[in-house]
């Protein structure tokens, strides 16, 4: 329980967060910029031999208003989700409001070998699929023995 001894300074908090994330997931996007669990949208990250695949589960979003950018190896997904029903009629009673509403921003740190020039993004059935190519040099390669 060494967490008790951490100061409440921002840096300490971030560090603690990072360590918690790494114990949870053991790797890849756990970093200083990782956000806590339960944020919107949830993200899954996977890799293939040629690409890094990122899926953001963000239903009900206008895909044209999504802001996806890569800057210095940091992929950022930002946008806003509005629920038209929420503030309309006064005679309407709300029983449950569990769905996320408002603006969101999530960042994923990409590994060194990600190629920011080879990015594809699609929005299908409420999932944002981002595919990022890897640099040639980092692709697995069979080495022939002479």
């Amino acid at each position, binding site marked *: 329980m060494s967490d008790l001894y951490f100061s409440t300074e921002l840096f300490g908090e971030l560090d603690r967060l990072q360590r918690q994330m790494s114990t949870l*997931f053991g*790797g*890849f*996007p*756990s970093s200083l910029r990782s956000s806590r*669990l339960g944020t919107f*949208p*949830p*993200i*899954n*990250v*996977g*890799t*293939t*031999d040629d*690409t890094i*695949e990122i*899926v953001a*589960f*963000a*239903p*009900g*979003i206008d895909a044209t208003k999504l802001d996806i950018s890569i800057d210095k190896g940091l992929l950022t997904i930002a946008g806003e989700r509005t*629920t038209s*029903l*929420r503030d309309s*009629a006064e*005679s*309407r*009673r*709300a*029983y*449950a*409001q*569990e*769905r*996320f509403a408002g603006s969101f921003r999530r960042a994923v740190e990409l590994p060194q070998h990600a190629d920011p020039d080879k990015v594809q993004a699609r*929005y*299908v*059935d*409420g*999932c944002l*699929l981002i*595919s990022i190519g890897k640099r040639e040099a980092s692709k697995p390669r069979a080495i022939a023995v002479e």
Partner: protein
Amino acid sequence: MSDTMQIAQRETGAASRNAADEKTRRLKLNPAVDIFEDSQGVTLLADLPGVTRERLEVSVHDGSLTIEAESVVPTPVNLHLSHAEIRAPYFSRQFAVSDDFDTSRIEANLKDGVLKLTIPRQEEAKPRRIEVSVG
């Protein structure tokens, strides 16, 4: 929803699965919902990312409304998942629906992974102004 035969069969299937296969049932996610009520009825919005119409089942049986869905994300082969915040691709949630609602007229609409259910009230259950006649 109009096909009651099928709902009955599916429900018995669900019951037996419940007993036999409890482990796999636990892996289902509870989709986040918004529920609103106005004088016409109830509107339910549920987040079902990656769910297509074919993989969504909305059923009403014995006063309970069940949403079951499977999320399919088109991913390339040989994908090695390195970070997962959504682990189970199955969504399931149940709600009790009282007799005030006309379950035969439920409308379901799925767009961009959001399910919108409109559950109208029974005609007699709608709030109504009662005229007082002076006699």
